[in-house]
């Protein structure tokens, strides 16, 4: 494999690994901040114990998110020097602003939060975790404005052999970036909600700290229900802007080959990439795909065949990722709704089946996040900046395939080890509960 292929693989591996930790940080920081605020307001010790218990899991996850994030900033220069030279004038700005305006805030106040329990007032302590939560979400905004620019470049001119920024405001208000931000952050909240519900369910069924974990479950169920509905709505608008600004990606997401008006939404589709058609497309709702794309059931959708072959993204990967994400998204709404209704009626202890299944669902929102990024990044190919600059033109000239082989193997081994440590610690500490004691084995029948 050449340096280009290897660099793409390495970016995919390191970005996907980084994004195991980011979504939980985004959502769990909010939940922990909420718990501590309740403690400061009410003085109720259970909220404090919740803050400490979930806070510990938050910190393990946070540490790995931070360290794997450094890789991303280095990699643009190391592996994608031609890209960085070409777009640095406009793309470097949001990254530098992220470090200055958000990352400093989160890294400084996390230290205050961990070590400041008896150094600052209760209120100031709660404020520091809110600052961490806001800063992580703000971090996401800047990164996604940067990614949004790669998807829908705005506010630039091509000059001096590169893309130069001429309108900072346009980049700042790029609707693509904001929709991506909303969709990504909300998906992180779903991850956190299922994480908390799953672990809480594991303890409730073992009759361990029932009050604390029922409270956690209720909070997470409400949070999960709201976020899973919102992530779906924002996702719909997101898909619409993809249809409008990245027609090839949209056509691949839905495996649409022919350009036509009033396109139905087919529940069952089997793409045949070789034959440039779908070998199966059934159970269609007339005009629905046109409606999804342009919020108009008569609208025309450009098919893949209208693009030259070398400007089409890998259809199967994009299509399957998008479909699977969609199915998962619908499932999250249904499960959260059921969990929320049961929790609200205080019926958790009499629903052992729900409690039993919830811990096994923890990985699913993580999977959905990864699939979403596959749609976003694979679907953008062959472009690194949609319509402006090809991925193959972006790779560094100074690196050899040997160097990238070595680094890719290094990352895979090192990250594999870190992933193992992370899962080990999270499992151990989540089982131990707030007092660091494993629950007894007696279960709710």
């Amino acid at each position, binding site marked *: 494999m050449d340096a280009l292929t290897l660099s793409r693989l390495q970016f995919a591996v390191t970005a996907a690994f980084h994004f195991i930790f980011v979504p939980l940080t985004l959502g769990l920081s909010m939940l922990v901040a909420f718990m501590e605020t309740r403690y400061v307001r009410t003085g109720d010790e259970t909220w404090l114990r919740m803050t400490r218990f979930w806070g510990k899991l938050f910190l*393990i996850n946070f*540490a*790995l998110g*931070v*360290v*794997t994030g*450094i*890789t991303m*900033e*280095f990699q*643009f*220069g*190391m*592996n994608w*020097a*031609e*890209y*960085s*030279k070409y777009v*640095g*004038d*406009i793309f*470097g*700005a949001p*990254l*530098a*602003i992220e*470090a*200055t*305006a958000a*990352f*400093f*805030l989160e*890294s*400084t106040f996390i*230290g*205050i939060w*961990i*070590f*400041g329990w008896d*150094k600052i007032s209760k209120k100031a302590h709660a404020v520091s975790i809110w600052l961490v939560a806001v800063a992580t979400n703000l971090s996401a905004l800047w990164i996604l404005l940067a990614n949004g620019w790669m998807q829908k470049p705005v506010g630039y001119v091509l*000059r*001096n052999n*590169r893309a*130069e*920024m*001429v309108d*900072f405001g346009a980049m700042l208000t790029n609707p693509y970036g904001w929709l991506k931000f909303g969709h990504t952050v909300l998906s992180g909240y779903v991850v956190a909600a299922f994480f908390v519900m799953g672990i809480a369910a594991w303890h409730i069924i073992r009759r361990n700290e029932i009050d604390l974990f029922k409270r956690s479950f209720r909070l997470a169920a409400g949070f999960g229900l709201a976020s899973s509905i919102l992530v779906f709505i924002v996702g719909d608008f997101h898909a619409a802007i993809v249809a409008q600004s990245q027609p090839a990606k949209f056509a691949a997401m839905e495996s649409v080959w022919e350009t036509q008006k009033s396109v139905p939404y087919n529940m069952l589709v089997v793409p045949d990439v070789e034959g440039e058609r779908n070998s199966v497309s059934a159970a269609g709702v007339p005009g629905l795909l046109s409606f999804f794309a342009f919020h108009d059931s008569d609208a025309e959708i450009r098919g893949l065949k209208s693009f030259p072959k070398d400007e089409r993204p890998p259809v199967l990967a994009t299509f399957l990722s998008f479909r699977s994400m969609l199915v998962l998204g619908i499932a999250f709404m249904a499960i959260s709704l059921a969990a929320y209704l049961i929790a609200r009626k205080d019926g958790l202890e009499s629903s052992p089946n729900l409690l039993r299944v919830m811990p096994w669902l923890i990985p699913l929102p993580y999977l959905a996040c990864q699939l979403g990024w596959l749609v976003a990044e694979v679907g953008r190919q062959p472009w690194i900046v949609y319509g402006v600059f090809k991925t193959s033109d972006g790779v*560094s*000239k*100074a*690196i050899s395939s040997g*160097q990238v082989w*070595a*680094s890719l193997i*290094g990352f895979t081994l*090192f990250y594999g080890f870190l992933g193992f*440590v992370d899962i080990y*610690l999270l499992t151990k*500490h989540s089982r131990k509960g707030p007092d660091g004691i494993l629950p007894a084995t007696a279960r709710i029948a």
Partner: protein
Amino acid sequence: MEFQIIWFVLWGVLWAVYFMLDGFDFGTGMVHKFIARNEVEKRTVIGTLGPVWDGNEVWLLTAGGATFAAFPTTYALMFSYLYTPLLLILFSLILRGVALELRNKEEGEAWRRNWDAALVVGSFLPTLLFGVAFGNIFQGLPMDAGGYHGNLFTLLNPYGLLTGALFLLLFLVHGSVWIAFKTGGDISARSSALAEKLWNPLLAVAVVFLAFTAFATKLYDNFLGNPAWMAVPVLAVLGLVGTRVFLAMGESLKAFYSSALTILMVVFTGVIGLYPNLIPSSIDPAHSLTIFNSSSSPYTLKIMTAVALTFVPIVIGYQIWTYRIFRHKVTPEDTMKSGALY
């Protein structure tokens, strides 16, 4: 003033502050085993970094981000030319961060011992490699129209290694002085003594470095043309002498400030000497990366200047506040009381 010059100054400040702050983290990470006599003492020593190391490291990300935004061509070429050393720095920084955050997440001697070893490696390697990298930037990289003509081994030349040794000793002393002032009693006395012991080789390497710089680099040209700038290296030397004097007087806080001043001024000396280059070419001056031929457009620089001048003072403000909150000395008693925190 032209925006390129403002950004050059900022670039220098970001690197200097980064090395001043993460320098004591690295130093502490390297020497903790030699200072602590038992587990509680070790937790105490490492505990001095707990609340601050993460915020310190962000200065590196900001320096990197600022290079990307203000001098994209330099960012692109520097990072791809120095691929392997940067990769090693990256792995070490990840290891260091994970070691600091996870060492207390499990009881058991082996767990902590392994992470402590990781902390030593993760502090030693970046220090050495940053030194080697900057030494090579000071003397210029072999680059011309055909790209880059070096590799990891050409970087390990005498001047590069000398700068690596200088960084190692600077941070070892800086870290020891930090521990001396952040702890009390025996631990403080031991790290103070270690700092004094390390100071002699530091002085020797610094003298050789200053002399060798005249032959290996063109850094002194700017000082000869503008002797007023000589104040900067003179301050570096004063800081170095001050560190030793204050250590002997038992004034560990003042010794720490002196050693911080030394690091700031050493970096500034190099940066002033580089101007207007960011990375000189050692084989073809026409292909040196300067602040003028590798910068972003004036529009971008103007916006980034506004961003930096707004946020950097705010960051400095709340970071100083953090150091004030945690200004107390860390003692073994506190460490025991806080249990799993360290």
